[in-house]
């Protein structure tokens, strides 16, 4: 039975910082930035991080299935919010996946995503890899210019695969093109990385893989080499004999390079346009190289993510405020006002009691009267019922609904004022006073349609903790009929 990719999904934050703004603010120091000052890069909103983007990408992918629960979940990133609190388990609970799922965090390499995928495909084969990245770069650095924030997800398995796994190869080499030993990356000269790294390490691995699979380089239809070096993929392709037209664009003009998420993001982009029979060569570079070869199958036409890379690219909001980017990435010490000084301790025992609500966004459905409600309390909320312990857990994360009441609060502390919040009513029942995210001024009204999104609710810098909860986002869709 063939084994391979069964689905894919992606997420790119809506905010797209205009590179001309970065260049304009920093060229006084480094005039070479002017040459990079074109296009835009994705930027996480203040309430987005690796986990929240991962939830979005995984949800995008899983929407293409009906109730699919992968038995293994690999989460790849070099920028996990927690060094020791398993990020993949937070992801798993936010996705409401079964607790029996094997959850694994993979980090410390730009190859985290490709190595996870290789491990899955070489092993039992059935699972999911989510790769997500939100790298911080020093103000005015090339990384700030060229990187972006994004996440991608890929499911693997047997049976009806959309891209058959033909083989994979890996090579370990402590070639230190860059490293992150502290807060920020430190890198070496680009030309050296290209000549001694890309052009020596990648061809060696790819040539071996192609020989093993008995595939000619000229037959590759999609060649993925994640890098912020614009000319490197072309140089490597030329050396290997891969057609220039096969190179998958690194999307530096629209997203920026998304670190450990970049290989899977480009794989998702390639799968979106790939035709049956086409070969996809995926590489990942970092202290060595991973190479994976896939053949697209006829089943490709039967899979559609909820939004995909093209949908995520299109859902953009132009950002021209570089100061906001610096603030969101904690690159400048902002005055929060005295209201921002309050203690934001999370009481972990209390959190543990409410995990089903806070992370999995489970409410209740009353067995006695059928009332759907959130939060789930001991007594049913229906005034005609009030039955005790009568509610089964009921998921709200995939629900849509409408705004009942709202405001834009400029008094309360919010990292990006005004704070939008209000009462929402869910389709099929349930009501909750909750935060809104990604609201455009004038873009919200009673009756506006909404969807639910896992976001950061609050940071506790004093203790290095962050709280997550679900927020409502305005949908550009009309109310359902009836």
């Amino acid at each position, binding site marked *: 039975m063939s084994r391979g990719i069964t689905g894919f999904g992606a997420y790119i934050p809506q905010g797209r910082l205009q590179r001309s703004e970065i260049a304009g603010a920093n060229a006084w120091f480094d005039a070479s930035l002017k040459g990079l000052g074109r296009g835009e890069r994705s930027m996480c909103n203040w309430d987005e991080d690796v986990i929240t983007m991962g939830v979005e990408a995984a949800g995008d992918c899983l929407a293409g299935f009906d109730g699919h629960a992968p038995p293994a979940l690999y989460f790849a990133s070099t920028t996990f919010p927690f060094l020791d609190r398993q990020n993949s388990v937070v992801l798993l609970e936010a996705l409401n996946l079964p607790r029996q799922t094997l959850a694994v965090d993979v980090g410390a390499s730009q190859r985290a995503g490709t190595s996870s995928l290789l491990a899955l495909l070489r092993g039992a084969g059935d699972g999911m890899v989510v790769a997500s990245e939100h790298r911080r770069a020093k103000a005015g650095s090339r990384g700030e210019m060229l990187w972006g924030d994004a996440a991608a997800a890929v499911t693997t398995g047997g049976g009806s695969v959309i891209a058959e796994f033909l083989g994979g190869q890996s090579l370990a080499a402590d070639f230190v093109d860059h490293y992150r030993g502290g807060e920020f990356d430190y890198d070496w000269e680009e030309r050296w990385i290209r000549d001694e790294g890309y052009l020596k390490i990648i061809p060696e691995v790819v040539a071996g893989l192609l020989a093993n699979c008995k595939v000619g380089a000229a037959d590759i239809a999609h060649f993925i080499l994640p890098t912020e070096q614009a000319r490197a993929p072309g140089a490597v392709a030329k050396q290997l004999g891969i057609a220039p037209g096969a190179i998958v664009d690194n999307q530096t003009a629209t997203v920026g390079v998304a670190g450990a998420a970049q290989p899977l993001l480009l794989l998702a982009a390639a799968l979106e346009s790939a035709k049956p029979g086409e070969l996809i060569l995926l590489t990942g570079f970092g202290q060595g190289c991973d190479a994976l070869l896939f053949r697209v199958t006829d089943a490709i036409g039967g899979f559609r993510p909820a939004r995909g890379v093209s949908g995520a690219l299109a859902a953009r909001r132009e950002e021209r405020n570089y100061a906001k980017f610096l603030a969101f990435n904690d690159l400048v010490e902002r005055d929060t*006002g*005295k*209201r921002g*000084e*309050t*203690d*934001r301790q*999370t*009481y972990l025992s*209390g*959190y543990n*009691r*409410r995990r089903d*609500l*806070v992370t999995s966004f489970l409410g209740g459905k009353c067995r006695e009267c059928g*009332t759907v*409600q*959130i*939060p789930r*309390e001991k007594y049913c*909320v*229906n*005034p005609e019922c009030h039955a005790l312990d009568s509610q089964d857990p009921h998921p709200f994360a995939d629900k849509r609904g409408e705004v*009942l*009441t*709202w*405001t*834009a*609060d*400029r*008094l*309360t*502390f*919010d990292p990006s004022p*005004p*704070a939008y*919040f*209000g*009462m929402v*009513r869910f389709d099929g*029942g*349930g*009501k*909750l*006073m*909750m*935060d809104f995210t990604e609201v455009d001024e004038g873009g919200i009204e*009673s*009756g506006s349609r909404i969807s639910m999104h896992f976001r950061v*609710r*609050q940071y506790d810098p004093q203790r290095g903790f962050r*709280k997550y*909860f679900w927020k409502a986002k305005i949908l550009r869709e009309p109310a359902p009929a009836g």
Partner: protein
Amino acid sequence: MAQGIKDKVAILGMGCSKFGERWDASPADLMVEAFEECLADAGIEREVIEAAWFGAGIDAFHVGASAMPMAIALRLNYIPVTKVENMCATGTEAFRGAVYAVASGACDIALALGVEKLKDTGYGGLPQRSRGVENDMYWPNLSAPGAFAQLATGYRARHRVNKRDLKRAMAHVSVKSHANGAKNPKAHLRREITEQQAMEAPFVAEPIGLYDCCGVSDGSACAIVTTPEIARSLGKDHLVAVKALQLAVSNGTESSHESWDGSYLKTTRIAARRAYDEAGVRKPTEEISMTEVHDCFSITELVTMEDLQLAGEGEAVTAVLDGEFDAEGKLPCQIDGGLKCFGHPIGASGLRMIYENYLQLQGRAGARQLTNPKLGLNHNLGGFPHQNICSISMIGHM
């Protein structure tokens, strides 16, 4: 069968401090200021007070926990003192404790005092604070104006009022209260404003602007209550008696059940019905002489007029703009300036409202005295439109 509180308890005396930014006054100073006026008005010594109820809303920040801050400040004679807190209904809650104690026969003379020291935060508005271990995990970080702005959008959606008309009516509410407050020497804000100023002020929480918000003030108010018989034996005539004391507390229906649409205060409607029954009021607009309602924000006052049955449903905008609740209107509201201008030291507000109606009923309200009032209604709302505590008290002549 319970008979209700009507005419069982009389107010022996009341006191109220000056409200405002009392930078130089401690909570104890404010309490003593109100208490001294109250003792003098009652004509008694503190030693005859047998029990006391002490209200402070955000005590952990300001006064400190327990009943001791009041017992110490007033040098009460080791009597039972009970601390109460029920958000913005705290003052009325203290009053309720004292009134019920007298009505039960447990004591003859009881004291209720509310105080709040809000201006020790270092910034405007109410203090940013925790909502509790579990609530802090998922509640929006809502400010008071943010919470009550919801009422405006809910009301607008329900009654299909356009933004500008509603905002104009909200502005009228505030202009009226500023005009009233200007005549009150104890009020925090004593400057008249124009409708244009109110309309054009920057948003605090859309559509609530600066002038839609009440004052955040320091202050204290108190009452000494007894039976009508004892009041008369102490030489009092023209007694002002308690006619109704009601409280309705949200049970989660508004916040989690679809039966509430966010356009009105469910608790106010319930408490008002009970209070009118208790006081024997059948036609509120004809029998009530004046109201002090919880105008924490202009929109709250506007919607409350409907919830108290003082305006028809969906008709408050017109009623407000027609001046029905102005000082010269059919049913004056916030004749003392209200929370808007008298100010809103949370724990004191309920008692401050009773204080104004008490003065009015005794003809002692000076420049703002209404003609021959008979029955006053006081209304407090603690919390948010989607979950709150509503208290209603009514006082009138015996």
